[in-house]
């Protein structure tokens, strides 16, 4: 069943973050939720995970309020923005195995899933016995992501999963989310990184002025002329203003390079 957000309003004391947001996120897709700094992305993530009760409106996951005791918690998992918010075990392997143990997976399945998740985020195996508190920020983020991915929930909510990840970590995470989609999983990726649009994502939603716009197809988003489109897309406008005829605005940086090279008549080196 889709995740349905209806008339969602949330405020923290005097600061109103959500002011009546509506959206329906269909099953089996990767939904990117983009928003500026302070727009309310994390608030939405917390409401979806049932960790924050909205002041008004409803959210339903599997047709159920995620904050209710009737909600099956194994169905939706949230990776927090800051790994510190979720890591508490004494070693990396114990941290990643924790959720699996709590959902009573068999010991061999726990090890299999742990090793799979560690590979997905590109975490070196040598770190498994280490105390997470002694790891770097980026390494801790990988641990937090691995512990959530290992559970293979039906719905995965990732809050700024790319912040602090290195080049390979980013590439591995994108590949993992795409692979999980093939297995039928629904992902909501809340991020400020518009560049991701060219790498994954079936739909794009925008958190603006306390509401949600979308989900919309990627090409509709790219053509919207909104501030939040990837910076490399703006180059079309810049070159057009200089008198070049550029056709289309591809979502991938690589394709954009080809379009530019052709339009400006460069023949290569």
């Amino acid at each position, binding site marked *: 069943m889709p995740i349905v957000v209806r008339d969602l309003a949330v405020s*923290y*004391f005097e*600061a109103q973050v959500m002011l009546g947001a509506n959206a329906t996120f269909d099953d089996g897709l990767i939904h990117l939720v983009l*928003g*500026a*700094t*302070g*727009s309310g*992305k*994390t608030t939405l993530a917390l409401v979806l995970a049932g960790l924050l009760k909205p002041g008004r409106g409803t959210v339903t996951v599997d047709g159920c309020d995620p904050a209710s005791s009737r909600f099956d918690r194994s169905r939706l998992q949230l990776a927090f*923005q*800051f790994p*510190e918010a979720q890591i508490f075990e004494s070693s990396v392997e114990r941290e990643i195995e924790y959720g699996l143990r709590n959902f009573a997976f068999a010991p061999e399945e726990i090890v299999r899933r742990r090793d799979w998740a560690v590979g997905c985020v590109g975490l070196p195996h040598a770190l498994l016995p280490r105390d997470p508190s*002694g*790891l*770097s*920020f*980026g*390494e801790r*983020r*990988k641990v937090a992501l691995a512990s959530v991915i290992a559970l293979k929930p039906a719905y995965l909510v990732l809050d*700024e999963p790319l*912040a*602090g*990840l*290195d*080049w*390979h*970590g*980013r*590439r591995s995470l994108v590949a993992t989310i795409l692979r999980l989609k093939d297995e039928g999983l629904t992902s909501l990726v809340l991020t*400020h*990184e*518009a*560049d991701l649009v060219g*790498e994954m994502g079936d739909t794009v939603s925008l958190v603006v002025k306390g509401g949600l716009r979308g989900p919309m197809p990627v090409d509709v988003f790219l053509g919207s002329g909104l*501030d939040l489109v*990837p*910076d*490399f*897309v*703006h*180059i079309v*406008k*810049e*070159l057009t203003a*200089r008198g*070049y005829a550029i056709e289309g605005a591809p979502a991938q*940086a*690589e394709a*954009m*390079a*080809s379009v*530019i*090279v052709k339009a*400006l*008549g*460069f023949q*290569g*080196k």
Partner: protein
Amino acid sequence: MLEAQDLAFAYPGRSEVIRGVTLSLGKGKRLAVAGENGSGKTTLARLLCGLLEPTAGAVRVDGLDTRDAGTIYEVRRRVGLVFQDPEDQIVETTVEREVAFGPRNLGLDLDAVDCRVQEALGTFGIGRLAKRPCHLLSAGEKQLVTVASIFAMRPGYIILDESTSLLDGRSRLDLLAAIERLLGETGAGLVFISMRLEDIWTCDEVVFLREGLVDFRGSREGFLRRLKELGFPLSGMGLLASRLDDAVPGFLPALARRSSLASDSLAEVLDALARARDGGGACP
């Protein structure tokens, strides 16, 4: 001058996190430090501001050795570190109190503190958050507050530890512009730890750490070539610049003369190269 000489550090009971690191940063200069997760970037930042003492080698700030207990407070006055995780840095209840914390501890009088706070809040575009409790800010807003807090102390050298990682594109460009302006006004030196090519392109020189060692030290374009040589997967503007480098003669050397990797900068370079090729202008 902020100098590290043959620097090494090991956390107690562990092998060395960084070793043989030598670098120097003059006033008014910008040095980027890049590296994979766990390569030693944050450890280096802590060594450079005297928060950690090296196990070998030395760090000198305008000639002051960070191991000298007699001058450590002077070292910390001169080098401001913005922590990677804002939660590690924020200690006060509201945004304006947080930004005032540093200047107050420097012993400035109340009027001067107030002046510094207003200036910093204005520069980083967070004046509207002044009265907000810090714990109710979003992660990106917290990141802006931590940067503003350190700039309000006007240190001679500023270290940003991935301080753009939680900011959207617009906020990031605004932050980079504000930093640029402040560095121009104060003449401070900047160490910018980042994995974003857009951030790195604002710096004069790049140090690339791999497993605690300096793998590369040199120009921005040299660093981009090194990433390509290593087969590192790039994205966004970095990937676009890399592909244009493959296909457009003279692109990277021309881009290297600019300090921005934003779309307008790339478009100007491409336009100038196309005109030069068609005989309509000089090579940029």
